């Protein structure tokens, strides 16, 4: 094809005019376009890097976070407080309340840390085994910086000086009925506290208001859940009744507050294996979050205001 000068000329003319239309009519910036082509080119030739946990920083910053940003800014209008409690460098363990039927709160927290923190740090979130069983979801989770919530991975991330996000309520938190909104569930066995103690990492309590109202769960189709191997099958005012439309989250107003870090490096060695210390610290984190949630709800006022 390329050997035929007449055809090559025609192709060139068509291509240049398409290019002109794109630039002039749509007002797309040439520099941005250049960057985009560069990015796509690197993707297509495999010139990129992932870390040991599968985190693809470039893809996260160029594709994954920008896709979520409109939801964060314009739909949930997320208000972030206490971002100065996230250290500029070094490891920290962010522990937050979990809710919302679909765990959008972890994605929004990840975006909050990246967008509001002066160093644009990445929050490396921890996910349940189910996340890594599902096709597509597991792939996006790893590329977005998530890894399995197990002691080995948490400690490896903290030892590498990363910022780690954990939702210790797990499925008990995300899948609780609407009537129990803003009531914290048990914080598991406090595994995240042991990991923090073992690595001397500060724990930043994080309270999220707003996620409870995005998919108010009024029922649970237990039989379907078991059939699909899911921890619960949500029934909300819109799902599954409205089909795909039921997947649109309600536009509640969100506040995410990062509390003062709780130090863990002053405990004697071996504290990580002392259940008394672990449960005490776990309760301290849990109480802080519960108290802050009550304050933030008052501050926010009506959910859809």
């Amino acid at each position: 094809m390329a050997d035929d000068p007449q055809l090559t000329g025609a192709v060139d003319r068509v291509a240049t005019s398409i290019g002109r239309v794109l630039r002039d009519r749509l007002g797309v910036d040439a520099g941005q376009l250049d960057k985009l082509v560069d990015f796509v080119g690197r993707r297509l030739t495999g010139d990129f890097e992932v870390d040991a946990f599968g985190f693809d920083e470039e893809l996260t910053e160029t594709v994954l976070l920008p896709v979520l940003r409109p939801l964060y800014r314009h739909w949930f209008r997320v208000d972030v407080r206490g971002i100065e409690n996230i250290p500029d460098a070094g490891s920290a363990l962010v522990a937050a309340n979990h809710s919302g039927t679909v765990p959008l709160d972890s994605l929004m927290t990840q975006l909050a840390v990246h967008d509001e923190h002066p160093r644009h740090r990445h929050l490396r979130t921890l996910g349940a085994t189910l996340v890594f069983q599902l096709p597509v979801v597991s792939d996006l989770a790893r590329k977005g910086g998530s890894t399995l919530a197990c002691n080995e991975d948490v400690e490896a991330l903290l030892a590498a000086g990363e910022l780690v996000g954990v939702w210790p309520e797990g499925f008990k938190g995300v899948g609780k009925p609407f009537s129990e909104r803003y009531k914290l569930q048990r914080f598991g066995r406090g595994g995240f506290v042991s990991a923090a103690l073992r690595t001397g990492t500060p724990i930043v309590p994080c309270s999220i208001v707003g996620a409870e109202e995005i998919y108010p769960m009024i029922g649970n189709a237990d039989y379907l859940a078991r059939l699909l191997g899911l921890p619960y099958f949500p029934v909300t005012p819109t799902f599954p009744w409205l089909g795909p439309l039921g997947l649109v989250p309600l536009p509640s107003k969100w506040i995410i507050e990062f509390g003062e870090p709780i130090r863990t490096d002053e405990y004697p060695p071996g504290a990580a294996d002392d259940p008394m210390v672990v449960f005490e610290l776990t309760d301290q984190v849990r109480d802080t979050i519960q108290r802050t949630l009550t304050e933030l709800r008052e501050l926010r006022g009506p959910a859809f205001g």
Partner: protein
Amino acid sequence: MSRVVMVVGVARYLGARLAELLSADPEVERVVGVDVVEPAESIGSAEFVRADIRTSDIGRAIRRTAPDTVVHMNILATRADAGGRAPQKEINVIGTMQLLAACQRSESVRKVVVKSSTAVYGAGPNAPALFSEDMVPGVSVRGGYEKDAGEVEAYVRGFSRRRPDVDVTILRFANVLGPTIRTALSEYFVLPVVPVALGRDPRFQLVHERDCLDALRLATVAERPGIFNVAGDGFLVLSQALRRAGRPALPLPTLGTPLVGGMLRRTGVADMDAAMVRFLTHGRGVDTGRMRARLGFEPAYSTLATFDAFAAARAQGGLLDRDRVRTVEQTVRGVLTGEAGHGR
């Protein structure tokens, strides 16, 4: 100290190369290569002894040659190499038992080196991102080669308890790749269109064939008892590897069903057993800290460099060749930025 090294499994590529490498090593006096068939490739000045490790032949060979070091390279990862799953398991498990029994009775053996694989850790959704040597192996191991590798190591541990005077080194290699070696994974990457699991992009590590041999040589000539993961620096994800090899991916809902797996095998497209399917679905990562600190081994090739060395030798001219993709990229860039069309 006299150095008589017996390399078990010299008829296959890495075994032959190691025997050749050791026979050129001034620290090694004599190299004995053992296998059931005569090696097709050069084993240097090593002497060849024919013995079947599934039988007591191997005991006689050890008595006759009196080695002080035995390197066990005869654990087969692909059933095609053995001629089926049953013979593969026979060679791996029974072969190891016979070899260790012979070593246990031998007066001369002072050191055993085993070429194992990170497959002992298995692969699955509940695997940690990085396995370290002390983790209970096989949390998600169900069968096939993964199980063989785990059983082999269990017998090696048993041997180690009965003969505490013998130094045992187990090297758990990540997948070995390079310009020459043929493995199930290398043949997978040279398929014109590569089947992958839909919605999965596993990450993995590689070891260059030269690094593999260097690590084995080091474990053979130096005193480094223990278990070590061996892998090159960094990670690759499958989609990235395929693009670097210029191979289009064919996403299938699952690679694991008897239908898909059987069809690929019968048509000779790819020999994928359950272990490989799990690897290609979930990937695997191992911690290599101990390899650096205690084995004192630094791989010359990173995972990426290993793959590129393999791709340059074996995977040229794929449908999505990188040069072709770059030409298109240049053209698109030219169009978008307003310079004349063909960006050449």
